[in-house]
């Protein structure tokens, strides 16, 4: 069966329909069959439907995603309660240790993202990985900084990513590689994203899984949970009616 590739972090300007169409059709041309676009938490159903129509025309599946950037664990819990059933993917941008720990523990979180280039503000360590391995969170790595940075900054980033990828693999935390781009020219084919992952010593098989199997598993799991037939893990409604 042909492998399906996914990019779970595209950030087009949602106010510009033309830009959104360009990004979606470029993703389709590059070989992705599933993408996720970051939506603001207050996006209306009509707007989501419009974007789904655009992606349908481009013959690509669109998953809805929201990025949470809470300042405290309590704020994270509040946001998760409010938004979990509205979006297919929930990513948490962890800017403090407490938020990172809470996000790793919480089974409602799909992706852990550490945007900071400062190694002191990247909290994916062994403790974090252990918590994530007991939950459902995956480590998301955006490739955009690897393309836009140069010199010592990129070297430091690669060093951090190498450490985090090693820890994630040791604790069996799934890694998801996304582009994280808002510009068409920075989009890359799935195998090119996987090739860039070799810069932080991720082996080829794991890198390919990070752009295919891992992101697809997250979307499949959440679509099942958000579907009308879902009751609890392993339990779903098969038939409704008076005489079942």
């Amino acid at each position: 069966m042909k492998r399906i590739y996914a990019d779970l972090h595209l950030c087009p300007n949602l106010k510009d329909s033309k830009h959104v169409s360009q990004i979606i059709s470029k993703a389709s041309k590059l070989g992705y069959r599933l993408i996720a676009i970051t939506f603001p938490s207050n996006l209306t159903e009509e707007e989501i439907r419009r974007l789904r129509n655009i992606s349908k025309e481009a013959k690509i599946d669109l998953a809805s995603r929201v990025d949470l950037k809470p300042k405290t664990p309590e704020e994270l819990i509040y946001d998760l309660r409010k938004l979990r059933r509205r979006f297919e993917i929930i990513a948490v941008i962890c800017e403090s240790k407490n938020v990172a720990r809470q996000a790793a523990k919480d089974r409602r979180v799909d992706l852990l993202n550490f945007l900071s280039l400062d190694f002191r503000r990247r909290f994916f360590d062994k403790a974090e990985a252990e918590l994530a391995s007991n939950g459902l969170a995956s480590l998301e790595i955006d490739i955009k900084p690897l393309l836009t940075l140069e010199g010592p900054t990129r070297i430091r980033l690669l060093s951090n990513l190498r450490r985090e990828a090693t820890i994630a693999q040791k604790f069996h935390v799934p890694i998801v590689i996304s582009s994280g781009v808002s510009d068409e020219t920075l989009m890359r084919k799935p195998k090119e994203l996987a090739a860039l992952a070799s810069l932080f010593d991720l082996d080829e098989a794991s890198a390919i899984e990070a752009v295919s199997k891992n992101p697809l598993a997250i979307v499949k799991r959440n679509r099942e949970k958000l579907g009308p037939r879902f009751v609890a893990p392993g339990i779903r409604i098969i038939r409704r009616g008076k005489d079942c």
Partner: protein
Amino acid sequence: MDAVWSAVLKLYGEYGASRAGLTLIDYDVEKRFAVIRTVHTAVDMVRTALASMTRIGNKPVAIHILRVSGTIKSLYKKVNK
């Protein structure tokens, strides 16, 4: 080609670049399509370097790899399909 060399150099240094054995075989200006030869053991390295390129001179670019093949003849056959 200078831009490609520069990308390999930036990521892998002079030692890495010396192992790549890069040669430009063909470049079609109209179709914006190039054929580059490299040592087979350096394919992944060159693939990564090409993917990391974002500019040639002052122009923003994105380089995508269409095909990798062992011989030039079969490469053209696959690409023309």
